[in-house]
């Protein structure tokens, strides 16, 4: 039998645990379970018919695919930005540091309109890229751009503190032992930041999947081509098809949860030995 009443150095375990469970239930579990209840009002055939329709499947592919690409891009360049911010003394470092957070703070609609403007065929960037045969606005590529924009701070902000903690001596030790820069990066630095990088990746990924405001303006929203799942849900809601909307949402939720869970598992493995 487990003795819950055993003495702990830190007081208030019971209260803290109770509060945590209550809070999580109120904020997370109850809304999500109501989603499931609503979905349960559908028959199995209706449910399947909704979520397995070609249009919905295409939107799943697009949303998860674009979010994945955006998160990967952010992992690479976010790591680079964090590295530069931590390791180098550069003029205007504070300003750059503050810029990183901007995608957090900006209303998503503003970001969406701005991006659509920039990348459309007569926008500042779009007019130079379109002659090259690359169309960004109103294509899946544009969705990736928007998701990359809003996901960047997650990677930078999770990796930055870990890099700050990484002793310079580790690199020096590696150099003394004869490792070249690539070996030092691949075998010493990367393994140390991988857990944080995975956290940043999964946050950026999750944000990308759920992103609505900044994406719809640049997406073009053509069914089967550039229509993201959140938009599809809104469309269903506007047609008063609540059950259908929640059915799609439920599938999305399940996928997201499974993906985040597996990332957490990988992370747990990577972090096991990271403690001093």
């Amino acid at each position, binding site marked *: 039998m487990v003795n819950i009443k055993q003495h702990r150095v830190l007081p208030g375990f019971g209260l803290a645990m109770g509060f945590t469970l209550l809070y999580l239930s109120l904020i997370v579990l109850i809304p999500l379970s109501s989603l499931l209840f609503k979905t349960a009002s559908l028959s199995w055939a209706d449910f399947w018919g909704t979520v397995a329709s070609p249009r919905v499947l295409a939107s799943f592919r697009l949303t998860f695919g674009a979010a994945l690409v955006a998160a990967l891009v952010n992992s690479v360049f976010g790591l680079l930005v964090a590295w530069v911010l931590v390791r180098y003394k550069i003029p205007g470092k504070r300003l750059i540091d503050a810029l990183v957070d901007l995608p957090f703070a900006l209303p998503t609609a503003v970001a969406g309109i701005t991006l659509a403007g920039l990348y459309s065929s007569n926008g500042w960037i779009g007019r130079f890229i379109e002659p090259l045969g690359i169309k960004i606005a109103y294509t899946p590529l544009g969705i990736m751009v928007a998701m990359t924009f809003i996901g960047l701070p997650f990677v930078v902000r999770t990796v930055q503190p870990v890099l700050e903690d990484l*002793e310079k*001596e*580790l690199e*020096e*030790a*590696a*150099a*003394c*032992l*004869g*490792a*070249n820069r690539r*070996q030092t990066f691949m*075998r*010493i630095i990367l*393994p*140390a930041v991988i857990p944080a990088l995975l956290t940043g990746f999964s946050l950026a990924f999750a944000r990308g999947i759920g992103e609505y405001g900044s994406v719809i303006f640049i997406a073009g929203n053509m069914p089967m081509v550039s229509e993201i799942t959140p938009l599809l849900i809104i469309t269903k809601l506007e047609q008063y098809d609540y059950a259908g909307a929640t059915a799609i949402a439920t599938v999305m939720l399940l996928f997201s949860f499974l993906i985040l869970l597996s990332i957490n598992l990988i992370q747990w493995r*990577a972090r096991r*030995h*990271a*403690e*001093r």
Partner: protein
Amino acid sequence: MGIQVQKISKKFGTYTALDHVDLQVPSGELVALLGPSGSGKTTLLRIIAGLETPDAGSIHFDGEETTQRKVRERQVGFVFQHYALFRHMTVFDNIAFGLTVKPKTERPDKARIRRRVNELLQLIQLDNMANRYPAQLSGGQRQRVALARALATEPKVLLLDEPFGALDAKVRQELRRWLRNLHDEIHVTSVFVTHDQEEALEVADRVVVMNQAKIEQVGTPEQVYDHPASPFVFSFLGHVNLFHCRSGDHPAGAIASPTRVEGRSIGYVRPGDIRISRSAATSEDYPAEIVFIQGAGALPRVELRRLDNGETVHADLPREKYRQLGLQIGEKVFIRPTNMRIFVPDYQI
């Protein structure tokens, strides 16, 4: 492999860390760089390793210039104060690291790496811990792993930056004896940095005393302890009593190296070189009053106040002598410095 340091200077901003430092480290010796913090000892070590570039001067390994050579090509083993072990690797992988990053043509095969690592694990007496992670080891064990890791590639020189600085007193004692024995076994030219004079005197073949970006004295532990070249060295290597005397006043027979002194001078006497007696045998004895006695420990320490000028003097007595005298606080006795060094006063600490 001997190390020759020639006229090395290094500044960090306006702060001078090293000022035209010259040093010869003979092949196979264990040398201690000893000095207070900020004396430039760690900077010198890091310049020898190539982790820092000097502003001027050159470093030679056995006559071969290495000043411009990259860290990874210098073949130095470096041990850091805080171990700098790779936390995500096992003890085995940490030690093997230097061998596994070698270019393919020079890299030993898996079996040879395994053999070498096992050899080193035996050397550091941690053969049963090969699969542990650094987080699962004690401080002393981690530092031994760091040492094995540095030795794995058979470096030409071994450099240790305050290797025992982060350890507690007992482990420190054990580990420095162990390092001494290890060095007697493998004879790799080694330089270690320390601010602990006891450590330097106990472990090193040769002690380099540094102060304010310069080398004050180089010598064997006996030389620097018994024949310090400057007041700084004298006071840095153990406790010291200052005897203020007028010229000609000091007892000529008691001076270790008589110096012609003009005007006021200061005599430096180690607490162990003070003799306490109940009666004045000669005119060289100073009357003093016992202020405090600390009887515990290997050498009982007596604090006295000179009656002629009020200066405080510390004396260490052998236990036997201490029991024999049976001193009491407040008692009036006579003290005589049996071994005193005089330095010219403008050169004081």
